[in-house]
């Protein structure tokens, strides 16, 4: 390399740097527009991430995050020896498993069914109706469930009696908690979950179906061999995202269903963090519990992403 080339390189490098600087200056109003949003993310999303350090401290409100004494992994040791731990861990995993195995396929099936509907008006009407519950808060969903399932005049129990069965105390019974939970999830999210699949299905080339019909493929076969493979990537991405949600499974919903009678099956990480942290004021210990949960969640997402890439799919990042 001769001197001239080296000089050229320097010039272009510093040129590029000053160009970036000029771009930034030119866009200063744009940065100003982004600033409030950025501040929000930094203060209410990243500061709490920094706040996770109290999981390694003995946090005292009057000492604050920076002044509280360090205790290393003491809270994590306590967590793993806590008799509640395995029960919470199990409950969280079971609800997660139910979400993934029972709930997750339902929107796919529903969108396959909707996709076969040729009468637009019928399709619209069904869609309009099944999307509604998604816009209701969990409080409303659980409340409706409550007035229908209660022993004092709830319609389900009244019908059970009418048909000659015994009343069932759905709300205060630990063996009914999980079915009730997943049914409410299905009711609220089944319709909404179809949107993304239907969008993916609408992009499928109609010629594929015509060719399949020429070859005498039945409607079921067309669904299985054309529609499903065409949305495979979308399904994979949504599975990964769902796994990311794992441990995020609606604190609100579970907390609303939780009571003294079903605590042994309904207590999950989030509700435990709430009870121990905010009700009992054990900030550090409950942060450790939450941290452990988030950490598992992150590992699961990365694992699922790695697996999907291994299988030749895209993954989410």
């Amino acid at each position, binding site marked *: 390399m001769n001197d001239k080339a080296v000089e050229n390189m320097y010039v272009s490098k510093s040129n590029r740097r000053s160009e970036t600087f000029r*771009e930034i200056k030119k*866009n200063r*109003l*744009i940065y100003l527009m*982004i600033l409030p*949003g*950025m501040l*929000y*993310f930094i203060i*209410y999303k*990243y*500061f*709490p*991430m*920094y*706040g*996770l350090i*109290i999981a390694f401290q003995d946090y005292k409100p009057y000492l604050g995050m920076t002044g509280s004494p360090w205790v290393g992994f003491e809270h994590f040791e306590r967590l793993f020896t806590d008799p509640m731990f395995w029960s919470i861990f199990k409950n969280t995993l079971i609800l997660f498993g139910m979400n993934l195995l029972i709930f997750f396929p339902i929107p796919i099936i*529903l969108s396959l*069914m*909707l996709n*076969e*509907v040729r009468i637009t008006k019928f399709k*619209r009407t*069904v*869609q*309009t*109706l099944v999307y*509604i519950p998604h*816009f*209701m*808060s*969990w*409080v*409303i969903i*659980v*409340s*409706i469930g409550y*007035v229908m399932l209660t022993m*004092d*005049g709830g*319609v389900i129990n009244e*019908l059970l009696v009418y048909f000659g069965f015994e009343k069932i105390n759905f709300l205060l019974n630990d063996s009914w908690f999980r079915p009730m939970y997943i049914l409410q999830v299905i009711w609220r999210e*089944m319709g909404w979950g179809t949107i*993304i699949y239907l*969008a993916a299905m*609408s992009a499928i080339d*109609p010629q594929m179906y*015509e060719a399949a*019909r020429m070859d005498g493929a039945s409607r079921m076969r067309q669904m299985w061999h054309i529609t499903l493979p065409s949305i495979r990537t979308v399904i994979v991405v949504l599975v990964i995202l769902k796994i*990311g949600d794992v441990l995020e499974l609606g*604190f609100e919903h579970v907390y*609303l269903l939780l009571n003294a009678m079903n605590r042994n099956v309904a207590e999950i990480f989030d509700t435990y*963090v*709430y009870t121990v*942290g905010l009700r009992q004021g054990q900030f550090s210990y409950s942060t450790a519990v*939450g*941290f452990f949960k988030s950490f598992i969640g*992150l590992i699961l*997402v990365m694992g699922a992403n790695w697996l999907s890439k291994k299988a030749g799919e895209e993954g989410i990042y």
Partner: protein
Amino acid sequence: MVHDRTLGSRMFDIVNYTLLAIIAMITILPFIHVVGGSFTTSAELAARKFVLIPTDWSLDAYRFIFSTDTIFRALGVSILVTAGGTLFSMLLTSLMAYGLSRRNLPFRSTMMFVVIFTMLFNGGMIPTFLIVQYTGLLDSLLALVIPVSINVFNMIILKSFFQNLPEGLEESAKIDGCNDIGIFSRIVIPLSMPAIATISLFYAVTYWNTYLHAILYLNDADKWPVQVLLRQIVVLATGMNYDSAEFGDTPPPDQTVKMAVIVVATIPVLMVYPFLQKHFAKGALLGSIKG
């Protein structure tokens, strides 16, 4: 498209349409039951079990819940939080989305990463609670808004929408001497009204449904939004009936009263639902996430 007219295909259609009709019915029946039940008398509800359309119309339940100011106060709080929160969120979200929609902006991808990373990992309930406390929002209605001002999904949807606007418009405005804020407020916003309206409705529904943050950050019962009150009345069966100071010797809320409270908390969402549905049903919005 050529239609398949074989017997098998017709059978398929019959089964498919029937099942879909049943699914749609089952989804919606609980709502009809609750609305119907709220407009009838306790006696009819007890006698007829599964009321859909009442025969014995009555407004007793509504008269009962509106007889004190508890519910008015809660509704007032919810309306205030919904209106204020939506405005605030839209301001922050659209400004940020527009900024990040600029293709040649230095550090754009870094900033996008900072935003998207928060979807994968977060500090969790307790550290967030402590930050809310440090920033002085505890027991203030602002705690229901500021700590959740931007929804990443909504921001990305708006950003993709802005990105799809023709670039030439901005350039010509620039030549005419308009600065970035002028372009945003005078050109981008008016052109994006459908997207802005939809995202606003999404925010409004979220704020109306706010519950978690109210129980986390507000101790003062006077500041509870309607969702918290609903839970008190229906799920805990406290709130109204145990609060004897306010209700005197009135009997505990019966089914019709609980249903009426559910209806009151639900109606606003149902009212905006047709507008919301018009936009997302096309799949246009969520389809654009990929972009």
